[in-house]
């Protein structure tokens, strides 16, 4: 981002407003029940619909006593057969579909802690085997209590970050006097067997005592048999889970690791290929596996542990084992550590220098080439596991012949708009008419697959088109451009995002996961980003508002000859005032990304892009490219609301005027009325006076609304990303001389 001068940077807000659903209270409910929910968010003042990613969840507005909808309240019906777990909830508003908030479906009875419970005395009573929805109070500790028998195994699970909450929960089990017995601060389950029958207290607070509606949680208190495994409440998936499990992997063939296998002399014997399940337990556990292999064999080793949701860092070393002079001699064949991110991940610099999404992992995925015949040992350990004694730190180890494949994940493109800002990363796919939105797509390539991957976004609303810029051979990054026609009608679909490639002569199709941030990040030094995968890909044409600026080339194939220059005129359609007159454009598209950035007049009618095919060394062929940059619009939020509010004010004024007259007339009539009409006239005069007061109050309210709408509609400097629709370029071979 180069167009913002230092003096203007701090005056600007970032990104055109889009609806964001931020809280939903309660955060879930039991299957087969109805739940009244209250929502809050940004830019959702006119919600039309609350919608979920699963058809087993439906919602209707909650009505007041007069049968009128209560703003931001809904009755959610959870079907009996709605799957237990995480679902995505969104609202449809004037500006389109909102960002997502998790809605949980459980199998236990649920309650909500609606009263202040920040002291032992005000503890909320919980039934065993139930879930309570709550949010912590800032600089305070929530208290709950429950009754238990002696010797009961009690599990206390607190879902928070896994359901989009900002809460880093500290959960304390205390005795009746509130004295701490056991504490869990790392997101684990409190597993406690009661020493005696009686009342127990659960305390919940944030690690740094933050609080408020965004610090919500679901607290499950359940009983369990002494040897029963712990089943956690459902959680959203991390971005790196996009590459796990490999397609077709099932659990029925996996073999357990067999301890003790920590010493070379006790290595577990295996044959390749293999599929093993084990755990990094106890602390500093090393698992050794021994197999025979022949020179020239090529195997692929994959370990999943972090991608199973564990805080681990698996590390693999394969060694050739020979006996020399009666001594065992081990020679390293390969060391495999992390799965690298396909693109540079953001640092914590204030300026934007890459997406804060890491599709890589601390897990292992790498190639093993056998250099010599004979015995080999594969050693697996957790580089985070030196002191940690947690049997839940499980892994899956697979050694296989090459099964080339790929996994995809995408997110909304971000670029430097303002230092510290990462807002664009959490925006929903709601399109203003005439806009093009870019998504960054990355591929995790598996087992040596290096072919091109084409990208497709299908099942789009009317007037919306999508063009994927193919991930080139051997590379990991592509772009998906989603364009809304200027006259696209309002529409919403659940799109199908996929990548296609040819592998071993077969056409293969894989889903492209969408990632988003759970919360907008206006300043990433204050708000640590919280990326996750989302379950579906809703695309919406909002039909109400147009993009402040459209830049597009004529829709045709632009032809050029290898080594020559290609000039593409760009048509600008500005729809509002802008701060500054220039903007800088960069270029998307295989072979063209090295094109130097160039400056254009924002409101110019005759800007052009010049592509020096010689310098870019573009080979003959067909290409899809696009240009993108950012501009600071003087954006007016919902100016139509001003005229609507004005009409309401006028209407209210008219009513007040009319009622004033009527009241006056009736008051005078009452003065002169005689029996037997007097009582009736006086009653009518009183009623008219009351109606006038109500009308005056309504006028005041309407005037307040007008004031608010007018203030909101004042032009504000908002910087946002502008991309062109895709441009087709055909480069012909240079004619033979």
């Amino acid at each position, binding site marked *: 981002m180069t167009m913002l001068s230092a003096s203007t940077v701090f005056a600007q807000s970032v990104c055109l407003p889009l609806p964001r659903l931020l809280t939903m209270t309660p955060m879930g409910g039991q299957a087969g029940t109805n739940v009244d929910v209250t929502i809050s968010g940004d830019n959702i003042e006119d919600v039309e619909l609350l919608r979920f990613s699963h058809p087993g969840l439906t919602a209707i507005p909650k009505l007041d006593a007069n049968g009128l909808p209560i703003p931001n309240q809904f009755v959610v019906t959870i079907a009996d057969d709605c799957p237990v777990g995480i679902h995505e909830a969104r609202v449809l508003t004037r500006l389109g579909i909102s960002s997502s908030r998790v809605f949980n479906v459980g199998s236990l009875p649920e309650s909500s802690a609606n009263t202040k419970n920040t002291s032992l005395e005000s503890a909320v009573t919980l039934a065993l085997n139930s879930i309570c929805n709550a949010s912590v109070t800032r600089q305070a500790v929530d208290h709950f209590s429950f009754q238990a028998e002696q010797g009961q195994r009690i599990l206390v699970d607190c879902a928070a970050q896994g359901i989009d909450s900002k809460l880093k929960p500290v959960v304390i089990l205390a005795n009746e006097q509130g004295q701490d017995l056991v504490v869990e601060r*790392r997101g684990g389950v409190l597993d406690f067997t009661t020493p005696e029958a009686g009342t127990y207290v659960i305390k919940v607070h944030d690690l740094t005592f933050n609080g408020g509606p965004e610090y919500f949680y679901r607290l499950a208190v359940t009983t369990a048999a002494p040897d029963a495994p712990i089943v956690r409440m459902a959680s959203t998936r991390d971005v790196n889970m996009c590459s796990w499990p490999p397609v077709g992997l099932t659990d029925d063939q996996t073999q357990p690791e067999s301890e003790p296998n920590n010493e070379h002399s006790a290595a577990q014997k295996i044959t390749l290929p293999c599929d093993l399940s084990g755990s990094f337990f106890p602390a500093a556990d090393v698992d050794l596996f021994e197999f025979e292999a022949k020179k020239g064999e090529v195997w692929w080793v994959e370990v999943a542990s972090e991608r199973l949701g564990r805080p681990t860092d698996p*590390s693999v070393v394969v060694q050739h084992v020979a006996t020399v002079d009666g001594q065992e001699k081990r020679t390293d064949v390969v060391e495999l550590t992390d799965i690298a991110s396909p693109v540079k991940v953001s640092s914590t610099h204030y300026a934007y220098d890459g997406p804060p999404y890491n599709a890589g992992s601390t897990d292992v995925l790498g190639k093993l080439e056998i250099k010599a015949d004979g015995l080999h040992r594969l050693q697996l350990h957790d580089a985070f596991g030196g002191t940690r004694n947690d049997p839940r730190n499980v892994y899956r180890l697979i050694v296989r012949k090459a099964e080339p494949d790929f996994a995809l994940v995408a997110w909304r493109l971000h670029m430097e708009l303002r230092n510290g800002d990462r807002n664009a990363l959490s925006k929903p796919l709601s399109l203003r008419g005439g806009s093009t939105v870019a998504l960054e797509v990355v591929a995790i390539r598996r087992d040596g697959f290096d072919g091109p991957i084409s990208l497709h976004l299908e099942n789009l609303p009317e007037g919306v088109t999508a063009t994927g810029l193919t991930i080139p051979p051997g590379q990991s990054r592509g772009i998906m451009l989603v364009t809304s026609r200027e006259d696209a009608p309002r529409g919403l679909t659940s799109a199908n995002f996929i990548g296609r490639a040819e592998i071993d002569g077969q056409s293969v199709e894989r889903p492209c996961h969408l990632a988003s941030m759970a919360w907008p990040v206006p300043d990433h030094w204050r708000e640590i*980003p919280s990326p996750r995968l989302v379950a579906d890909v809703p695309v919406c044409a909002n039909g109400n508002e147009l993009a402040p600026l459209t830049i597009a080339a004529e829709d045709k194939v632009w032809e050029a000859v290898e080594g020559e220059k290609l000039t593409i005129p760009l048509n600008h359609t500005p729809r509002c005032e802008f701060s500054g007159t220039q903007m800088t454009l960069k270029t998307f598209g295989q072979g063209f990304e090295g094109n130097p950035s160039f400056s254009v007049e924002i409101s110019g009618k005759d800007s052009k892009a010049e592509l020096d095919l010689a310098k870019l060394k573009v080979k003959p062929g067909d290409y899809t490219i696009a240009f993108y940059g950012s501009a600071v619009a003087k954006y007016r939020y919902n100016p139509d609301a001003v005229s609507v509010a004005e009409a309401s004010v006028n209407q209210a004024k008219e009513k007040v005027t009319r009622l004033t007259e009527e009241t006056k007339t009736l008051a005078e009539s009452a003065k002169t009325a005689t029996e037997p009409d007097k009582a009736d006239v006086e009653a009518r005069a009183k009623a008219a006076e009351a109606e006038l007061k109500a009308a005056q109050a309504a006028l005041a309210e309407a005037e307040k609304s007008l004031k608010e709408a007018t203030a909101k509609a004042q032009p504000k400097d908002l910087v946002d990303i502008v991309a062109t629709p895709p441009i087709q370029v055909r480069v012909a071979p240079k004619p033979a001389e």
Partner: protein
Amino acid sequence: MPMFHRIFLSFLAALFAVPLSPSDIQGAEVSFVNDVVPVLTKAGCNQGACHAKAGGGQNGFQLSILGFEAADDYASIVKQGRGRRVSVAAPEQSLILKKAAGVLPHGGGARLGVDSPGYTILKDWITQGAREQCTGELEFVGLEVRPDKAVIETGGHQQLTVLAKYADGSERDVTPFALFESNSAAMAEVTEEGLVTILDLPGKVSVMVRYQGKAAVFAAAVPMGAPVEQIPSPNNFIDELVFANLKQLGIPPSPVCDDSTFLRRATLDIAGRLPTREETVAFLEDGSEDKRDQAIDRLLRSPGYADYFANKWTSLLKNRRDEQSDITSNFAFHAWIRDSLLANVSYDQLVRELLAATGTVVGNPPVAWYKRVKDPKDQLEDVAQLFLGVRLQCAQCHHHPFEKWSQDDYYSLAAFFSQIGRKPTATPNEDLIFHKRGIATAKNVKTGIDLKPRALGDDVGDIPPDEDPRLRLANWMSSPENPFFAKALVNRYWKHFFKQGLIEPEDDIRDTNPPSNPELLAALEKHFVESGYDLKELVRVITQSNAYQLSASPNDYNIADQQNFSRFYPRRMQAEVLLDSINDLTEATTTFANLPAGTRAIALPDNSYNKASEFLKVFGRPEGASVCECERAQSSSLAQSLHLINSNEVKGKLAFGNGRAQRLAKSDAAVEERIRELYLVAFSREPRSEELEAATAYLNEPVLNAEGQPMDPNKATQQNWQDLVWALMNSKEFLFNH
């Protein structure tokens, strides 16, 4: 006669004015390393402030610190300075002699008179050709001081003799060349010639003797010789060893303190707070014989214990808030320590989890230590000082002057930290930590040699590339045979309860700094190891001892005793405890950013609160900048007195709307009962009759306003009660743990 003995005779002659025949020196060969360097050291030439000053030495003449690098010193003297420092042709014209003798202007003054033996040695060495090595050069292998211990009355003297031992089995008396240093200037003085004079204090004192990179120690027991007739019956081995020492020294102990004093003392020391009125009343009424032991166990089970000791450890482990984004890391780290103490995780496990921490801060909070302490050199120095009581900082650049530690020892310890891998996280300046596969080594910057991990001279075996070397270090530390680990901790905790460590400073454990009661230190160490490094048990055994429970009131003999624990040594409450105690007394509160109302100052997670609290600053709450407990200021100052007497903060607490003074002023209870409440909270005891009388009289005094008119009776009553609370709060009995 060997040259050395002849030289020594010449020194004796100088010291005791015995004429020395020139024939004793003539013809002997002078050794640079064994004769010249000790002369330079004794004369102070190679001190850090003089020619051993880093960056070229004073005025461009660089010597190694205390002569540890003789080869470098030789080059510096003979080959550098354009060769003018020595003149073999005209030895007296050598710059080194002219400067040392003050013939030429010398910033350090005249260090060697032209008639001094040192001057003669230097001159002879130059005359003989200023050779780096002489014929039959002896290898210096050991140092001995005679006697190495003695019982000396106050005012007595002892001349020390220092013997250097050489590889060929020979010995030399090097007393004139040795350096002497008393570990307690209040107890003993020692001259440059090794004559020890014992002053007036009874106890144990030692003199460190250094010569040519080696050190030895002379330990003196200074008895008081008073009759020791009444000794409390021993509760445990601590009492046996403390009282045996007192008997040996003839220092009669004070009697065991009363119940009120015990409860207040133990509650302050274990849980960092005053006992509540209810606790005090219940304890005083309790008739059971083991009520003190029960009270100790109750305190050890309470969250106050975990909060108080977490407060101690987080500061030593540098839990500093430098950036706003540190808050999560700091809260997590503090909570990890606090929870571990509450759950009584064994000390060796606690240190192991810290030392070998991996992962993210939130997932594994001890990783936060590696956020604060990033440089491997700082890591080894902090670990050595904090957990082993060994100060290794000097050995980074040169041989430790008081100890056996060399640069090889330093970098061998650094090698344990050489395989720490870091990866950035989404939090600024916060890495996750992992074990980076590979053979651990660290380069000795002086020799350029890559060294494998060795733990302060101990071989820990070969560490394969797949093993985190820090785990091997943790294994070594927690081995029952480890000579440092348990000793350092029990000494640190002893000091917590007794004000004075058995070794002082508590984190400077070395042969040349012997404990005041070695048998006791050894027994504590053994008990701690055998208990499985159980911290609560250590606190229990210390506080259950009658030695801990002695009265702070001195008897006729032990007022001067500062190191034998013949009475309890009172100490001012530390900043956080004092603030909490004032809040408890006044029933006011202090609010802290980001923390729930009612959070006590001892439960603060990091140093950031010092900025906002003038009180904590003035009373010396540490900033977590060093691993030394000395960062906590325990001294008194005028600012502290003024703060207590007249600060807005304290006045606000006294006048707090729902505070104790206001409540008592409005109470219908009898005045005596209300005064009793104050004394029970402030001092954990009932008021004495004269105190009751004085307080009652004061409360009944009329109060005049600024105009000299009688104040409104209600306001006057409130004012009087505030005054009474103020008076109690400003008493030493309140401010001190005694």
